[in-house]
């Protein structure tokens, strides 16, 4: 098959294609189990295989994919034909930034391949977790387990050939109940980074027991809690909302294709302009953010992106100053040319597709915030006069240029005069992105830093759902409107 692919690539080059690449997935497998109130509603497995072909012709992309690999020639012809039509409307002929030609492979580290674990053992684990969630106060319990693995080959006309073997595990545990007003309150947990590997060994029953008991306890407190007040105060964001704040107002805002207007017709643009790199004060000097795809255990680490560029650790925001973006080979060339200066030195290796049948676009890797010097959560609370601690993503809605946002959270704890007070429900907060990040007044130390996994980031047309990570400390922001 690899030889056939190389022959097809050569054939299209002979017909005028200036660049061709192919992603062949011999398999991508997914195992998903979903339990509601003790009923194992879904026991699903999927297996898909096929090829995706990307062709550059006279400065325009064509793409074609099929699960029917017996008709390889037709897939390549269609990709070239698509590029030929696209070449009739070119405004900025696509060029690709230089990269190293590589013969390489990447395998995600895992001790126990979750696909080798018997189904009965997985079901037993879920039953056990479900039992820990059982409580008279809990009306709905759900436990989801998703395991994925794929073998993917990347071959391009420049001579790179890369093999990737990637395993990921995701889980979600959730409880909910209606309060006295008939309003549903919920508390959930998603598995994040634990240790250095990403296999079945992440499912440690003792850890799940602790988490399960905690979310049940917090749900009970929510059911008896008063409403979140509506006023301006400091917000202290714990990991399960801090990750989302980072995701929506740093991650998406710094995707270079959005900045260049390639998502304007759908997902939106970015308030960031090319002029802003090296100049814009994105946040207070306590804010340092980076795109780090080199951490071993995260779905945002994949060895090489779908341009064949190796994973990197790049600064995005350096002590408040905007310095970098999430980039691909195509977009850095266009950005540098449009800006008439070299803002980006090569691709940051963030061009990814969710499946063989989707075209790669710029996606977040692990978009992380560096830990700070403001101590533990207790220290941050002690230094807060009038605030609220928030956790758990419930809803998110962001302006089309990522300039403003509204988040609903699962739980809040009021803070008055340095002391943590009771729980409040239906907590929300909102703000303007730059004003918000510039109000960052405390960043927790390394002991507060945790890696959160995201398994549902959507972008692009056709839409692609991708997996990534966010390593974040606990942070405090001042003068934020809550409860609206």
């Amino acid at each position, binding site marked *: 098959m690899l030889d056939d692919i190389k022959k097809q690539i050569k054939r299209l080059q002979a017909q005028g294609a200036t660049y061709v690449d192919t992603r062949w997935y011999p398999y991508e497998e997914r195992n998903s189990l979903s339990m509601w109130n*003790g*009923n194992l*509603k879904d*026991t*699903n*497995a*999927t*297996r*898909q*295989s*096929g090829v995706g072909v990307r062709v550059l012709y006279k400065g*325009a992309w064509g*793409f*074609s*994919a099929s*699960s*029917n690999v*017996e008709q390889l020639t037709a897939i390549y012809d*269609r990709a070239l*034909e*698509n*590029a030929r*039509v*696209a070449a*009739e*409307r*070119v*405004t*900025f002929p696509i060029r690709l930034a230089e990269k190293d030609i590589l013969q390489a492979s990447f395998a995600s580290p895992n001790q126990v391949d979750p696909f080798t674990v*018997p*189904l009965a053992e997985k*079901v037993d684990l879920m*039953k056990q977790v479900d039992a820990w969630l059982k409580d008279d106060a809990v009306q709905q319990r759900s436990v989801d387990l998703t395991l994925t693995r794929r073998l993917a080959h990347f071959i391009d006309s420049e001579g790179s050939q890369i093999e990737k073997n990637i395993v990921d595990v995701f889980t979600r545990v959730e409880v*909910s109940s*209606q309060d006295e*007003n008939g*309003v*549903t309150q919920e508390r959930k947990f998603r598995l994040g980074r634990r240790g250095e590997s990403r296999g079945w060994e992440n499912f440690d029953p003792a850890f799940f027991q602790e988490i399960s008991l905690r979310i049940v306890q917090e749900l009970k407190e929510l059911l008896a809690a008063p409403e979140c007040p509506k006023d301006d105060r400091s917000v202290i964001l714990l990991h399960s909302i801090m990750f989302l704040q980072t995701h929506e107002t740093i991650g998406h805002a710094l995707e270079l294709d959005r900045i260049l*207007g*390639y998502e*304007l*017709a*759908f997902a*939106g*643009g970015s*308030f960031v302009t090319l002029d802003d790199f090296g100049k814009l004060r994105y946040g207070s000097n306590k804010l340092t953010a980076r795109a780090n795809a080199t951490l071993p255990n995260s779905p945002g680490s994949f060895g090489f992106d779908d341009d064949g560029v190796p994973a990197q650790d790049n600064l995005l925001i350096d002590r408040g100053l905007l310095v970098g973006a999430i980039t691909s080979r195509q977009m850095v060339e266009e950005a540098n040319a449009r800006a008439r200066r070299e803002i980006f030195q090569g691709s940051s290796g963030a061009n990814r597709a969710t499946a063989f049948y989707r*075209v790669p676009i710029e996606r977040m890797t692990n978009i992380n915030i560096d830990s700070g010097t403001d101590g533990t959560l207790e220290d941050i609370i002690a230094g807060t006069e009038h605030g609220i601690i928030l956790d758990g993503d*419930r*809803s998110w*809605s*962001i*302006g*089309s*240029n990522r*300039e*403003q946002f*509204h988040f*609903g959270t699962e739980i809040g704890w009021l803070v008055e005069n340095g002391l943590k007070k009771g729980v409040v429900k239906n907590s929300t907060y909102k703000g303007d992105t730059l004003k918000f990040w510039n109000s960052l007044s405390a960043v927790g130390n390394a002991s507060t830093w945790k890696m959160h996994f995201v398994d549902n980031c959507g972008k692009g047309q*056709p*839409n692609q759902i991708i997996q990534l990570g966010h390593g974040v400390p606990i942070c405090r922001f001042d003068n934020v409107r809550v409860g609206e």
Partner: protein
Amino acid sequence: MKEIVFSTLEQLRNYARQQGLTATFLYREEDSSLMRFANSAISLNTNEHLIAIEITVYDGSRRASYEVIASPGDQEALLRGVDTAAEMVKHTMPLDYAPTVTAIKIDFVDESGFDAALAEMSSQQKLEYFNAAAAGMETGELRLGGIFSSGINVLAICSTLTDQTQYIKFTDAQVNVVLSHAVDKWEVLAEQSAARKTDLDPTPLQDHLSFLVEHYRQDPPIQLPLGKYDIIFGASATAHMLHFMHWIGFNGGLMKRGYSFLSEAEIGTQVLSPLVNMADDTSDYRTFPLRQDLIGMDRSRYPLFEKGIFRGFTYLQDEADEFAQPATGHTVYHDSLTFAGGDHPVSSLRQLVSEPRDTDLLYFPYLHYANIVNPSRGVLTGSSRFGALLLKKDGTIAVPFNVRISPSLKDILGSQLAWLSRESEANNISLSYGARNPQAIVVPKFMRVNGVEITHSNSSY
């Protein structure tokens, strides 16, 4: 092609019967193309041809499924899929209810939604359509974007319980044409949804866009003060709000789990404004109707609200089984939601703008990035985008920067609803996460809602 689908399913059914299994087989095929425009170029021209076969094996109240996306000719992989599902079901856990297994009672073939002319449209023809929709408007600063997404869907299903097979084939297209200002960062949008090629006409898109572009260029921008506004929602905003009813409205399974602003006690009572008539109506071809569900149940018109009176929840078969409710024929990838028009005689934006008005009106065509803040209260939040206008009392127009609203569906469609336009249109809300699943909601072209609170107002576009 149909013959290959039937014979593939037949072989799978025979194989499963030989193994003594109870199984269902779902065949899904999509042939999708998407031409994407950005910065006045075709940024991507793609097509995907995918065939997926999902095999579900039942053993009493145990159930497991296995889906293969591969070459249809790979018989071996498909048969191995049956074996895998059969092995999985042994180790899964029994449900505490009895799941209904699909039983197709009569051979059902519905190709009425398939339009060969739409299926055969070339990339060249799509490009010509796009050029016509944007004719005369592009400049260096004002750039063309959007999509022309089209495809063919085939769904076929059978089970070991009967010898019959269901087969549904249909075409769809979703067109979004956007003009965006590179410096001022505003965007205006015109959309069209098509089930047939004859539904496609770039003329009204060009007219709508040129009207908006003219105003966005000429009229003063304004940061709206916070407060209550009388809003005219466009079809897209209305359709996107209604789409949330699939999760937090009339979906019986989610209601039972506590995620609805409607309750069983409200069935038969006045919940929304008497202006609201809403149904799942498979007789409207614009909704890409599925006239049988995946269980083999006929899907005729299913009323949801009549003059604001709530008529009942819809159930997936599995949730009907779990919650001991009668099945409603809603085990489908998408329903056919229609929201009937009212009596206000406005049918275009130009007409709306020229109507005399006794108060300021905010035209709110599109709800960007909406999400559910509180499912139990039906509270959503989202921002304006793609061509909002402030139609002032004195007849002038201003162009508002984007604003956020966080209303409750119960209020929007209840006491605050002032009028619905007589004319309706199909708004294509497809997102194509994963498998191609075209979905359009038929809604009034315009809907006036009074006293909607603006909770955030941008200082720029």
